[in-house]
């Protein structure tokens, strides 16, 4: 559990850094999507997002190179499940304006009613989905 707490504190610090540094919410689904958009009048609007996403990949990569982190075992779910899940996660986070980071870590911290509601909703449907696939269909 100590890893979970240290990791969570680091995630919180990352969000605080983005907030105090450039005044932005560390919502990964939004940053990811915006980073894929055509370059606008102000190129930094794309570049900061692209660099945040790059950092998100480089962080674990550095840990791997230093041998401080073991890659978790791959999921045993099939490719069909993976692709449908990816599509739903993308669709849902865009439609619902956020994911676990934007609504969960940042939105709840802002005491946003929308984010509290969204977080409770996606956690509830996640729990229902896992319960159905693990305990009722198998």
């Amino acid at each position, binding site marked *: 559990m100590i890893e*979970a707490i*240290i*990791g*969570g504190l*680091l995630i*919180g*610090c990352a*969000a*605080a*850094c983005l907030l*105090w*540094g*450039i005044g932005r*919410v560390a919502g*990964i689904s939004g940053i*990811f*999507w915006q980073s894929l958009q055509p370059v606008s009048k102000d190129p*930094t609007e794309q*570049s*900061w997002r692209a*660099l*945040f996403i*790059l*950092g*998100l*990949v*480089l*962080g674990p990569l550095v*840990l791997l190179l230093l041998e401080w*982190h073991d*890659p*978790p075992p791959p*999921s045993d*779910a099939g490719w069909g499940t*993976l*692709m449908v899940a*990816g*599509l*739903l*996660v*993308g*669709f849902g*986070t*865009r*439609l*619902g304006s956020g*994911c*676990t*980071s934007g609504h969960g870590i940042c939105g*709840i911290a802002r005491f946003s*009613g*929308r984010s509290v*509601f*969204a977080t409770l909703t*996606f*956690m509830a*449907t996640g*729990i*229902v*989905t896992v319960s159905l696939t693990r305990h009722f269909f198998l």
Partner: protein
Amino acid sequence: MKNWVALISGLLFGVGLAVSGMTDTAKVLGFLDFFGEWDATLAFVMAAGLAVTIPAYRLTKDHRPWFETGFSLPKASQLDVRLIGGAIIFGLGWGLYGYCPGPAVAAIAYGRLDAIVFVIMMAAGMYLAEKLIRVRDKAGASST
């Protein structure tokens, strides 16, 4: 400077996700598995994250960001069908595989095809949602 702040924030976020075990789909699904052997990891990660972000957001009052003229925080406050529908669909996908956007992107570091395919499908899903939002906005604009 904005770019450096974002890169450092991304690095910290990625390290945090990896260290906390959130790039492990089994741990995430274990948290969502209330009727099985419940894995509390995600709850600890979220609580620790909030322990930093709650005071961090309180401190934005009467201040401005270091490298920006002001804070750009979401202004919407209404619960609407989009938010509810989106959260339901996201939760469904999350519960099917165990990746939400952050861990999926961070897991690209492991060099396996699963995270890469997931992220590509995620981008496709976002594109479809964006299309739907545009179509609905147009329909709404023409009917009013």
